[in-house]
């Protein structure tokens, strides 16, 4: 029967594709773990410095990843600190107050912002720092603050979309009840809508954190360097995990450094996947079950 033949070929293709995708990613993760596990020791993070003192920053670390880890944490905090309030505000406006043509145009603008390649955003940041350097103060250059700002711009559209779809996804009955009881829109937002969509918004924030932690192209152009020590000032260069991995891949000078690169890859992979799994579980209400038992 003709159908059987076609069915068989399709079957092979479908199952084969699923296998290909799964094994491709499996090979990537497996390779990183295989090469990186031997490097998982305290000296990976702290080099030759005593771990406890280096952890608190009393002793500088030179051949360890600790400054890079601190750098990544700092830049992510800055980015999220900038993007979450702005994204929340913009998302609320889009969901609650924008109508018709304005809403359409704003949606398109944010779609475009979401799709801008990360290196173009980095380029924008770099040229912004050039202008600021020339016209405002010669002390300004590519630095932690600039990287934080640019990463914020990178994840802003995702946050806006998350907030917007969270609010718009609430059932109509929920949205109207408080209003019908006489509350005005701000009260409705503050006491009803936002708390109900906290789950979805939290998911969006966590995904944004993950996106900031793993991005390399933006920080490559706006302040990440290979050696800078722990981040001390907003206006200075900093180290970061993804930058370290990129740097090591093309210019490792010893087998030990390459090993550290794999170790860094494991750490970054763990952070990214860990954050992603947390976000997934929040979306599936696991948090609620943990906290409220239902």
């Amino acid at each position, binding site marked *: 029967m003709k159908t059987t033949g076609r*069915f068989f070929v*399709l*079957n092979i*293709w*479908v*199952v084969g*594709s*699923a296998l290909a*995708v799964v094994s491709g*990613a499996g*090979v*990537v993760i497996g*390779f*990183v773990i295989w*090469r990186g596990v031997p490097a998982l020791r305290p000296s990976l993070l702290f080099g030759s410095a005593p771990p406890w003192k280096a952890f608190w920053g009393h002793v500088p670390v030179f051949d360890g990843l600790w400054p890079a880890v601190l750098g990544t944490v700092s830049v992510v905090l800055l980015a999220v600190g900038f993007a979450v*309030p*702005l994204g929340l*505000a*913009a998302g609320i*406006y*889009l969901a609650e107050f924008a109508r018709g043509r304005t809403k359409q145009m*704003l949606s398109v603008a*944010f*779609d*475009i*912002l*979401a*799709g*801008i*390649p990360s*290196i*173009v955003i980095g*380029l*924008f940041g770099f*040229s*912004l720092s*050039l202008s600021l350097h020339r016209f405002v103060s010669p002390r300004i250059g590519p630095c932690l603050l600039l990287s934080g700002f640019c990463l914020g*711009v990178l994840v*802003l*559209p995702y946050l806006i979309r998350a907030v917007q779809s969270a609010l718009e996804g609430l059932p109509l009955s929920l949205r109207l009840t408080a209003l019908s009881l006489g509350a*005005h*829109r*701000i009260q409705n937002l503050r006491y009803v809508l936002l708390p109900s969509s906290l789950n979805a918004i939290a998911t969006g924030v966590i995904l944004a954190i*993950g996106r900031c*932690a*793993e991005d*390399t*192209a933006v920080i490559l152009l706006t302040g990440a360097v290979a050696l800078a020590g722990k981040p001390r000032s907003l206006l200075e260069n900093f180290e970061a995990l*993804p930058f370290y*991995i*990129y740097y090591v*891949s093309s210019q490792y000078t010893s087998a030990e450094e390459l090993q550290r690169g*794999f170790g860094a*890859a494991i750490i*970054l*992979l763990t952070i990214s*996947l860990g*954050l*992603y799994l947390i976000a*997934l579980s929040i979306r599936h209400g696991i948090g609620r079950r943990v906290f409220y038992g239902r």
Partner: protein
Amino acid sequence: MKRRVDGLRSEKAVRMALATAVVTAAALTGAIFLYMLVLAFPLFAHGHVFRVLIQDWAPLQGRYGIRPMIGASLALSFGALALAIPVSLGCAAFVSIWGRPKPALFVRRFVQTMTGIPTVVYGFVGAFLVVPVVRDVFQAGSGRCLFSAILVLSLMISPTMVLFFIDAMESVPKAYVLAASALGAGPAEKFLWVILPCARAGLITGVLLAFGRAFGDTLISLMLAGNAAVFPSSLFHSVRTLTAHIALVIAADFQSLEFASIFACGVVLYAVNAAIALVAWNLRSRLLENRP
């Protein structure tokens, strides 16, 4: 009465604040484009706009065209799509239609988690696993070439495409599929003649967004494609994409035409991205209109 008036006033204030936030965010979109244009201006003024896009890159001879980079970006994106589309389609079919419940769920969760793998890790594995293998197996070049980059990039864009395709396939109304079954169609026929055509708009949107992602990717091409600024003429030659060009030349002299060329790259990248966003938006709004 008093409470209501206060409420209105505070609502106006909050509304103003929110509107300002939105305008700032939207303004960023425009500001980025403006910066690219303004800083690319020396190049556009020095030679015509078309000359920049059509010439080859030979700074020592005074030619600052980005044609090789445009060619490389297109070749890499289309190549990665060519590899990734059939595989993602098949994988999505497995998860949403074909596979048995348990493996299908496993693959779905796995692919969802895969989207969290950092790009730089893909590039790192590519540099130490794919490049030596390509160099030894194909014996043509240093291993850092278009082919290696295509392999890794197609793996990277697959998860997002798979998830998009799954969404598109699952939103085909069950009634259509059941009707086809009632008429005697087998699984293959249902898939080919009912599900795929109905999910067409969602599938195309997924492909477009994956293309945008592939076109705008920096690290994989920077680490794996070799970075020679020549128009791609073979799968195993070293090439340099628009994005890698920006990363490489960023460190050059600020006022030179070389430096301005990276902003020309930025303009092209931005324009392509905006075009994709507009087309995808158009498709999506048409999709929403046509949904029964």
